[in-house]
């Protein structure tokens, strides 16, 4: 096809026959701008065009649509944690990276990260890992100080070894704020997800794909704990990724937010330069946890598969992951980097020079994989929706729970 294009153009330039535009479809921030430049330099004639959708839900919908249609998905796509099982069920829509040397790269990734994008029979791998979402707790030093709480990150971490201690700290915070607008947490839903992802090796679905929302105690525990925070009046009740939530980072509407590594970049963007140094990071209650993280895949429909695979390997390599970490804070899924001083000793000036490398790496090494079913996203949406209805006083907690279960059963089919 390329040669015919060149013939049509009647271009005598030698390079024109090799010109390829690679379209990369991502969500949020992957921090690849410099890596693209490097790749373009090392591969003359290749041009990379990235599209990044800010809203993950919208991205997932579009990606599914385009993968199903077999066109328009681009040459390289990001698959988010919650979508992996879904796409693995249609693994034939993606290039099997095992046919292109993925098995030789296996050791580069946390074992569960590699398995997460590999079919159950082990024969097909559709994506190579980029980051993992090791959890920490981001907090506002200035608001803590106002509320009479310690601000030093070691002392702050000591305030909340458990989620119960976290709630108690929240009450102290709220009392100390004496009726001012700032709340302790942003919303029940984000806290709920953090607790849930720490609680078990699976969430809404067991490994046979059966919906276990009622029989998996981790879900109800996380649900109750999160709504307890709302009842205590320590939640700002803001919907994730809404304009009010975004503005909340800047205006100090909430003093803490459970933050996976990738969220540090988001907070910095939303809170802006004016708030540099007001944020800090401490460990998350209840030990380590994971929220999010992605793989890069090449759709079968891509017309430039070979060079796209090369780009995927390049971006997900140790060097690529480290560059992305430095650019936007995404935590590498390559465990060899965890001993690398460039990662281990990294600090984040925006977050009061918090030792992000140490904080996130400490959690990542102990991460246990959490199995998410193919219909994880719609079930999670249904549960979060119902939780927000409870937060906004539209339903009682028990009505909310029964609606969540009913809706989950409906969407799980």
């Amino acid at each position, binding site marked *: 096809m390329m040669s015919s294009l060149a013939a049509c153009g009647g271009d005598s330039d030698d390079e024109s026959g090799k010109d390829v535009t690679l379209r990369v479809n991502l969500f949020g921030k992957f921090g690849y701008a410099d890596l693209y430049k490097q790749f373009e330099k090392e591969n003359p004639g290749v041009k990379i065009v990235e599209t990044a959708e800010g809203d993950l839900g919208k991205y997932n919908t579009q990606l*599914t649509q385009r993968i199903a249609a077999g066109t328009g998905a681009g040459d390289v796509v990001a698959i988010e944690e919650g979508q992996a099982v879904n796409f693995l069920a249609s693994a034939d829509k993606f290039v099997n990276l095992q046919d292109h040397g993925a098995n030789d790269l296996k050791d580069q990734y946390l074992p569960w990260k590699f398995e997460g994008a590999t079919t159950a029979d082990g024969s097909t791998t559709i994506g190579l890992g980029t980051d993992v979402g090791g959890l920490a707790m981001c907090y506002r030093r200035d608001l803590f100080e106002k509320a009479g709480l310690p601000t030093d990150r070691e002392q702050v971490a000591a305030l909340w070894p458990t989620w119960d201690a976290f709630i108690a700290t929240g009450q102290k915070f709220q009392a100390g704020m004496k009726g001012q607008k700032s709340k302790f947490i942003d919303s029940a839903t984000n806290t709920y997800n953090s607790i849930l992802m720490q609680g078990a090796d699976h969430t809404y679905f067991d490994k046979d794909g059966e919906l276990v929302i009622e029989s998996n105690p981790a879900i109800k525990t996380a649900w109750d704990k999160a709504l307890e925070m709302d009842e205590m009046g320590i939640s700002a009740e803001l919907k994730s990724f809404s304009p009010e939530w975004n503005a909340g980072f800047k205006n100090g509407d909430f003093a803490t937010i459970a933050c996976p590594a990738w969220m540090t970049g988001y907070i910095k963007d939303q809170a802006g330069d004016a708030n540099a140094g007001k944020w800090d990071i401490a460990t998350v209650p209840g030990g380590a946890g994971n929220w999010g993280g992605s793989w890069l895949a090449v759709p079968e429909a891509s017309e430039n598969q070979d060079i796209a695979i090369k780009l995927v390997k390049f971006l997900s390599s140790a060097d690529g992951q480290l560059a992305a970490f430095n650019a936007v804070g995404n935590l590498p899924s390559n465990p060899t980097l965890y001993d690398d001083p460039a990662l281990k000793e990294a600090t984040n000036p925006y977050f009061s020079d918090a030792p992000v490398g140490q904080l996130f790496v400490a959690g990542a090494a102990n991460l246990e994989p959490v199995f998410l079913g193919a219909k994880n996203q719609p079930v999670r949406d249904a549960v979060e929706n119902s939780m927000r209805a409870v937060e906004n006083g539209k339903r009682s907690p028990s009505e909310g729970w029964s609606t969540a279960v009913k809706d989950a059963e409906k969407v799980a089919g």
Partner: protein
Amino acid sequence: MHLRDRLARIDIHGAPYFFIAPFFILFGIFGAFPLVYTLWVSLHDWSLLGGNEGWVGLENYSELLADGYFWNSLLNTFAIFLIATIPQLIAALALAQVLNSSLRALTFWRIGVIIPCATSVAAVGIIFTMMFARDFGVVNWLIGLVGVEPIAWNQERLPSWIAIATMVDWRWTGYNALILLAALQAVPKDLYESARLDGASAARQFWSITIPMLRPTLMFVVTVSTIGGIQLFTEPLLFNPGANSITGGDTRQFQTSAMYVVEQAFTGQRFGYAATIAWILFVVIVVVSLVNSLLVRRIRSVD
């Protein structure tokens, strides 16, 4: 000679079909085929990525009839449609009357009313969502001036309907006004003159001449508004920004049927079921359009 005759006959009888063929071919490809294919999909268990997973007959349809969320979305759709369309048509008619009189800078005003229609719906959605925001919205500030408590516009049912209807009206009132204006200008002036000679009041002239003369145009405007209203999607979607916007609020208080189609197809990945909703929605539009045209037809013709 025979051949020439035959060619001439084909020319005379066949040419008209040939000339209108492009429309029917395009309609067949982009109109009829999707319609029939959607019907076919709706009779199957069809997952978005996995494709056809087997014939289920009318199972999707019986599930739909018992689906509370579908009826909820239909209620929302019709409520928003009525709240939006009735004031909109009255305002458009009034605007058209004003624009039909001799104003200064008439062209300026006429262009002015169509500008909202030319703005991007995304921009309208974002601006109106900010105006109707609970904490820092200008609408709550305004009603606060007259002592009304702030309203959580996108959390309560009726307020959210009103806010979305406002967005729809902002975009479409001017457009309908221009269409009605064009029809008004086609009304022969001598009808009004003779009515005046007979001593008819302005109101009488309006009801006995203007409205009947506008009947075909009103029918068009009502039908187009109906189709647009029942397919309403973008405005309510943008009114619920952030996570999970497709459900139209935490309790689905303003999820329209078109949104429910998309939710089932792409979040739920149930393509067959989504096709079922789409088909029922199509039937609803046909029925409502027929009812509308019957209603409009009741307007007495001038002759």
